[in-house]
């Protein structure tokens, strides 16, 4: 099986993620400062966590002096999807990836890094992965710094427009695959319907959003895995 292991290809594939992160991290920097963190704290948080939803949830807990267990649980629930992604990505790793590499690469296994690595044909190697995670990590950190330091200068209308960037990227990852592979489209449809139900239906909408992501995704993926198991030929498609 072919192993994708070019550092340059990794950098190339990581750059769009980096740009996407710049704007999201920028917004996070503004959010963190508005909630009483200072710039150093916001940047430190981004450099040590590299997770948008988890960090967004953590800021108010820290700002209000919440309990450590509350913080730990919120991170566990919101970020549990990364455990699934790490299991999945672990299957994609080529023979060049050593144990030490796994300790380092998993640190920046974000939704987007995972999606791009997963979409490669064949397996992925250590040099490709280091290239892939480098600029997103820098973009996430630098974006937070920029947002914390200079966010107030940009007019609201620009910041507001940048807010959709990360979601547009998600769409650009999912739809081309859904177009080519019907069961993937069905999986996306189920996930979207469930997500809307958990957002708008009484009772269901009381469930914390971190839980919702896990629940909806697990149901949609499990249903499709039963109805349309992916064969050898589709395994790395």
């Amino acid at each position, binding site marked *: 099986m072919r192993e994708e292991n070019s550092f340059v290809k990794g950098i190339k594939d990581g750059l769009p993620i980096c740009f996407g992160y710049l704007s999201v991290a920028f917004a996070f920097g503004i959010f963190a400062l508005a909630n009483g963190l200072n710039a150093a704290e916001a940047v430190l948080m981004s450099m040590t966590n590299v997770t948008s939803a988890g960090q967004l949830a953590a800021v108010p807990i820290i700002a209000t002096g919440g309990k450590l267990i509350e913080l730990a649980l919120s991170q566990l629930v919101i970020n549990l999807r990364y455990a699934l992604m790490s299991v999945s990505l672990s299957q994609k790793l080529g023979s060049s990836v050593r144990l030490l590499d*796994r300790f380092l690469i998993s640190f920046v296994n974000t939704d987007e890094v995972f999606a791009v690595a997963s979409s490669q044909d064949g397996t992925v190697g250590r040099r490709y992965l280091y290239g892939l995670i480098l600029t997103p990590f820098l973009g996430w950190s630098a974006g937070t710094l920029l947002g914390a330091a200079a966010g107030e200068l940009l007019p609201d209308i620009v910041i507001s427009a940048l807010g959709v960037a990360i*979601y547009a*990227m998600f769409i650009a990852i999912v739809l081309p695959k859904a177009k080519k592979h019907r069961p993937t489209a069905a999986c996306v449809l189920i996930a979207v319907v469930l997500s809307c139900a958990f957002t708008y239906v009484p009772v269901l909408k009381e469930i914390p959003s971190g839980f919702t992501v896990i629940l909806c995704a697990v149901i949609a993926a499990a249903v499709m895995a039963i109805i349309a198991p992916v064969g050898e030929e589709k395994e790395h498609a």
Partner: protein
Amino acid sequence: MRSFVLYLAVMAGVTYLVRMLPMVLIRRRIQNRFLLSFLYYIPYAVLAVMTIPAIFYAAGSWYAAAAGFVVAVLLSLRDRSLVVVAACSCLAVFAVELLQKL
């Protein structure tokens, strides 16, 4: 600052363990067909759940966001790159919000 470092250590620790343990511990190839299929579908399901309906609340108004959504969908179906899709989507939102202000 001391208590912030404590908070930071807890959240970073939990987040890292969640990511690291499965990648370090589960290293042999999974053979189970259901599990392989499940893991194939998971990223698409997660991204779909996180995007909808959240994208419609990501801009100043839902119709500005909807414009960004429509542009992103159309360009994605034409296999445009992530950067192009994201940039055009942002421009669409910006244009609609600008029009609203006039």
